[in-house]
């Protein structure tokens, strides 16, 4: 894990350390099993077509979980994730598999974010962030926000 970040280290505009993710069909099946979301929209081509989304799409909740990973990596063990929200605005399409474990070349998704506000309230050092998942074209398919409490150097 990265070294601990403190409240004093961030300002409005500070960038959250980006996190790369590659969605692939295998991963969607793994996510279905782990999350219990067995909607065929995410693995059955004919069903996805009938639903009007073209081909199977990445689970919104998986992208939400990626954003959770982004935030908990950034805030470190002493940070506290208090709120996280996101909207599944754009469809994302996983890479197909080349081998049993490796996908074909293609899109890489990036989880990103930046600090929008910092303030002290109820004894907590709070930081609000705008966060999102962007696709290979740079479109924010999954915009959201997060509220975290960070440790402070003065209380170390």
């Amino acid at each position, binding site marked *: 894990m990265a070294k601990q970040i403190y409240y004093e280290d961030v300002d409005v505009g500070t960038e959250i350390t980006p996190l790369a993710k590659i969605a692939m069909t295998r991963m969607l099946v*793994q996510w279905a*099993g782990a*999350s219990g979301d067995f909607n065929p929209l995410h693995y059955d081509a004919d069903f996805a077509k009938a639903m009007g989304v073209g081909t199977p799409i990445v689970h*919104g909740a998986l992208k939400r*979980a*990626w954003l*959770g*990973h982004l935030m908990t990596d950034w805030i470190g063990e002493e940070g506290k994730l208090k709120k996280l929200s996101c909207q*599944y605005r754009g469809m994302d399409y996983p890479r197909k598999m080349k081998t049993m474990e490796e996908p074909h070349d293609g899109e890489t998704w990036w989880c990103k974010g930046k600090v929008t506000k910092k303030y002290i309230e109820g004894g907590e050092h709070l930081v609000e962030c705008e966060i999102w998942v962007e696709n290979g074209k740079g479109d924010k398919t999954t915009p959201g926000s997060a509220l975290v409490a960070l440790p402070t150097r003065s209380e170390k």
Partner: protein
Amino acid sequence: MAADSLITDKVKKLIGVPSEPIVFKVEEGAIQRYAQAIGDPNPLYNDPDFASRTKHGRLLAPPGFTGWPVKGGRLTEEVFKSLIKAGAPPRVLDGGIEFEFIEPIGAGDVLTATLQIANITERETRLGKTMFTTVEATFMNQKGNVMLKSRSTLIQF
């Protein structure tokens, strides 16, 4: 417009009605599989020995993971079924979610979730006439502490 609204009286009646409680068990293996599916190697979610030596004292669940319902199914499944039964459109997409994390959830927790529909709106989208349902859930642990609140959006068209 009112005549062909998706939000019929039958649908409207579902707003604010609390669901039957849904019980979730948070198990170590389920946490590990969930973390692996995210691709998050954080030892707090993956390594029980490491996690037991931290202030948490046990494997933690990644944010948003509430374990598995002991009776099967999914959190919003019953709500969705009740909407369909009331005549709402059968095609559904997940619109998004807001989480408020109150206490860390971890291995061994037994959570009881209660859900209710907070509101329903509709508008024309590229999917056609589309209904947006906000479902609120509150998760309590075995000691009666509120651990997590969520607001999710179901999109039906």
